[in-house]
């Protein structure tokens, strides 16, 4: 007889274990990003993590809370990592610090700290920068293989902290491709080309496109997809939010692609470009600012997917994950209110 005795409780993850698991699952994506875009993002991650951590500690001291016990939960670390991944590689250091201080100080702690924030801190910090410094925030590097000037670790450090590499190249020069033109991201290229009346085929002659989406970007997104699937397998995140987001993005972009195959980006392009996978698995699933009911999570994810499509297609910015997540964060209370599951023994609400 091999019977187990009650209680059949399962060990659930503690906050800090959960946060560290999410950070670990970012690593494949970060590694691929490093491979394609160079050292910039590693520097940004280090910067953002340090700034987030220091801000968290300072504010906890100001609030007279136990600093060491709370900073051990690694939530500021995760915010820093996500922010660092999302920021352009050679963004000036002080912008990263502004975003980190705003994310932790204003968006998280003014609302009461971890568990009380209405908005995703990393994305709020990102959007603050995007609104304040639109030019710097949309200056992404071309993939290393297509860049005219190769930037090593030392060059990248110099670019981030002084604005010029050790050979004297500026950030704008670091964005030159082999063709001698300033690089644009795949999503940006498609948007500009389609607005100028080019067809999708003509637009995709551009070397920024890879096998099935943007060069480099497709592999970064695949790596985040893998990390995210592992998170779902370990039940760190529920699959409803990424499922809802990717499904709605796929269906909406699929319909528009089916109707005008030459005038709209393909569903694969939408799914594997920009921050789609990072957003779906690592950002939208933030346990604090996302929906908590099962049905609500599907709606929340679908809402983000629809808004990502809308902003990418008709909006002013090339990518849209940050704005979509923040807008969906605002509707969380309403969604959860209407998705409350029936309590056992009570009737369905009329």
């Amino acid at each position, binding site marked *: 007889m091999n019977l187990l005795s009650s209680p059949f409780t399962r060990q659930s993850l503690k906050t800090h274990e959960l946060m560290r698991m999410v950070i670990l699952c970012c690593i494949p994506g970060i590694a691929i990003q490093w491979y394609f875009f160079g050292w910039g993002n590693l520097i940004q991650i280090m910067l953002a993590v340090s700034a987030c951590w220091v801000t968290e500690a300072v504010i906890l001291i100001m609030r007279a809370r136990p600093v060491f016990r709370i900073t051990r939960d690694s939530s500021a670390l995760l915010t820093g990592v996500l922010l660092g991944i999302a920021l352009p590689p050679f963004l000036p250091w002080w912008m990263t610090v502004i975003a980190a201080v705003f994310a932790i100080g204003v968006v998280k702690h003014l609302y009461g700290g971890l568990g009380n924030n209405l908005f995703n801190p990393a994305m709020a910090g990102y959007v603050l920068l995007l609104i304040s410094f*639109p030019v710097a925030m949309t200056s992404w590097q071309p993939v290393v293989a297509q860049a005219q000037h190769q930037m090593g670790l030392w060059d990248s450090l110099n670019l981030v902290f002084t604005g010029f590499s050790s050979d004297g190249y500026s950030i704008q020069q670091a964005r030159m491709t082999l063709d001698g033109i300033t690089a644009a991201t795949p999503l940006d290229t498609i948007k500009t080309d389609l607005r100028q009346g080019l067809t999708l085929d003509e637009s995709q002659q551009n070397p920024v496109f890879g096998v099935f989406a943007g060069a480099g970007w497709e592999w970064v997104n695949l790596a985040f997809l893998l990390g995210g699937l592992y998170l779902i397998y370990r039940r760190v995140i529920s699959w409803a939010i990424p499922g809802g987001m990717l499904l709605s993005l796929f269906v909406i972009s699929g319909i528009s692609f089916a109707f005008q195959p030459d005038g709209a980006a393909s569903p694969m392009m939408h799914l594997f470009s920009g921050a789609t996978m990072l957003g779906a698995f690592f950002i939208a699933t933030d346990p604090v600012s996302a929906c908590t009911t099962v049905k609500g999570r599907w709606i929340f994810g679908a809402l983000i997917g629809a808004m990502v499509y809308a902003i990418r297609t008709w909006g002013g910015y090339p990518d849209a994950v940050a704005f979509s997540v923040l807008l969906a964060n605002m509707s969380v209370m309403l969604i959860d209110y209407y998705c409350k599951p029936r309590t056992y023994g009570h009737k369905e609400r009329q």
Partner: protein
Amino acid sequence: MNQLLDISWLGLWKNNPAMVQLLGLCPLLAVSSTVINGLGLGIATTLVLLGSNVTVSLVRQWIPKEIRIPVFVMIIAAFVTTVQLLMNAYTYDLYLALGIFIPLIVTNCAIIGRAEAFASKNALLPSALDGLMMGVGFSLVLVAIGAIRELLGQGTLLVGAENLFGPAAAGMTIQLLEFDQEFLIALLPPGAFLVMGFLIALKNIVDNAAAERQKRHQPAPTIERVRVSGNAE
């Protein structure tokens, strides 16, 4: 005299229309991108508030209760039109910079709020003082938010002073900080909301500290025990 001091203190600090009543936020947030814009709208609002409070207080006996709001709105609209024409004549560039927000002073709830809550129930002198102090309190907040936003956004203070004070004031602009890139969010409406929030927080901190100090200075109440049972021996 004491009552007049009270009225001033209420308008400037304790019941400040912008920071406590949170009235008139639309113009407050929309035009407070520079000190001069804030000051211009602040002066215009103060003039309208003063005029409307005086007039409402004078005619308060003859206004039927049922139609008092339309009457107040018409009085306010008359003053706003006057101020708008004056600004059009004397500070034309500022008039252009503030644009639609000058006529929109009519809809500023702070003004109709004072007419309804104070001027329609009080005599001429307190009403006039109330209008003036509420207006000055509103202007102070406008100027403070304008200064912070201008400094964070473009590193200057008093940009466009010549629009308000005439060409001689063109040299009043101070460049305090030099930026390569403007901190745009401070100049955009979200920045106004953030600055406003921080100002209100600051006011609450000051108020709480003052209340704390007052509590400490009061003597501790002496506790008197009351015998409820048994016999005193």
